[in-house]
């Protein structure tokens, strides 16, 4: 059950963000949307999350007509670039939010919610910080809370909007590896937006290179490096490719069974 995006278009008042984007990703894959600013990658992500409405096009996922489902009901866990943590709630309350706002019938009992929060806190390695407030945490910690919060609702897909963009290089590298490990553990379909080539190539099973509202090429990282389809792709990945000697490339770019 894959994610199928067909000919999605989005026009804002003064410019066209997406000019007909199509792609297919297998279930459980880690898809990286890579491109410069203005390429439309964040718009596409927000459309998948229901935070923007597409003008034209169709998306199907988990057998559902995805775009007709309101954002509230999609269960697409969204992680924002600036974390968007609820500043007046503790870490625990933030994580529990998605469970507490469920209609009474679907809401788990309080003890269960507490247990889940603890579970998620240890998953993101923030045990004991449940009663802290976001302002008391570092950037990296905040992002992990945001991730835990998104995972609390048992999402069908995980959407990350340049989640490490506001963090310094060292923290970023650490979180990258950790996120990759998390994905392997959970097996959730994940769409990850970034403008950092290294990040996309390191994390993605599939990488879609976007430019000016269109997909230039979508392929596995090694194919993108060895066989760029357009001059833009070649140029955009040139630095990243140059920085990776062949042996590193092999180890960095995982060969996975793509079903």
């Amino acid at each position: 059950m894959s994610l199928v995006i067909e000919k999605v278009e989005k026009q804002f008042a003064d410019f066209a963000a997406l000019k007909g984007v199509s792609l297919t990703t297998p279930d459980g894959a880690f898809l990286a949307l890579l491109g410069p600013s203005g390429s439309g990658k964040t718009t596409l992500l927000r459309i998948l999350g229901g935070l923007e409405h597409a003008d034209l096009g169709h998306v199907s996922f988990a057998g559902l007509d995805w775009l007709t489902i309101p954002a509230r009901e999609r269960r697409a866990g969204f992680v924002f670039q600036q974390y968007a943590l609820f500043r007046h709630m503790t870490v625990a309350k933030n994580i529990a939010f998605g469970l507490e706002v469920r209609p009474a019938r679907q809401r788990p009992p309080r003890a269960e919610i507490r247990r889940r929060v603890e579970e998620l806190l240890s998953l993101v390695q923030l045990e004991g910080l449940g009663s802290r407030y976001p302002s008391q945490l570092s950037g990296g910690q905040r992002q992990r809370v945001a991730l835990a919060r998104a995972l609390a609702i048992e999402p069908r897909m995980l959407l990350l909007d340049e989640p490490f963009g506001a963090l310094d290089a060292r923290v970023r590298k650490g979180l990258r590896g950790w996120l990759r490990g998390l994905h392997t553990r959970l097996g959730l379909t994940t769409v990850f937006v970034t403008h950092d080539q290294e990040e996309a190539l390191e994390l993605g099973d599939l990488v879609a290179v976007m430019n000016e509202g269109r997909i230039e090429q979508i392929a596995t990282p090694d194919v993108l490096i060895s066989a760029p389809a357009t001059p833009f792709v070649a140029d955009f990945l040139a630095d990243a490719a140059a920085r990776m000697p062949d042996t590193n490339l092999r180890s960095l770019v995982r060969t996975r069974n793509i079903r």
Partner: protein
Amino acid sequence: MKRPLAPTRDHVVVRWTLTAIALGFVGLFLVLPLAVVFHDALGDGLDAALAAIREPEALAAVRLTIIAAAIAVPLNAVFGIAASWAIAKFDFRGKGFLVTLIDLPFSVSPVVSGLIYVLVFGLQGWLGPWLADHDVRIIFALPGIVLATVFVTFPFVARELIPLMTDQGRDEEEAAVSLGAGGWATFRRVTLPNIKWGLLYGVLLCNARAMGEFGAVSVVSGHIRGLTETMPLHIEALYNDYQYSAAFAVASLLALLALVTLVLKSLLEWRFADEISAAHHH
């Protein structure tokens, strides 16, 4: 060795002169009038002042002022929240026009603010004959006073919340929606806690103006003693009757309210500066 003056500091003579001018101006124009209120209130002694306040007509005026504010302020708070929600959390054409419209009462003379309601609801107004036929009194009664008060004070909460909510952005609300929260849950749990100090601030200013409004209410009230006089109108009536110390006694109540408002306002600005404003512009 004498150190030269730092290039960004004024010469000490200049500093003293300007400070003296500034303090003199403020003292003369702002503090003295305030002092006169309290001094002349006690002109006939404290007992006379308290007696003036306890007069039935004065008490009726106090009651009416409080009731009018108690209706107008919550209404305007709801309006302010609704308007800022629409303006701050959504994109649509005509926002600028809407904001200008909301700022309108600040550019209109208080007397005109009352006049417009007389033109609609007064005896010779648009709805005048219909209202007379159905024995409904708006002008020269509480509803008219409330309307005029609502008009002059509704921008306060909105003007406070619009920049605040715009500055706070939509991320948290979008996050809430993506986590499954509905409209009211999002507003109640996410937005409201973020704007509570700004809301309080706006309500504080709104209330101060609502209780003190004179011109607009004067036009619509009919000045019926004991019935449609708010405190400012009662003060005017006493003053015109040459009952000076009584007038100042009632006025000192409003002056006290003004001082309390200023203190609370400063407190809020000092403690919650970031949560009150994106850009403070009064």
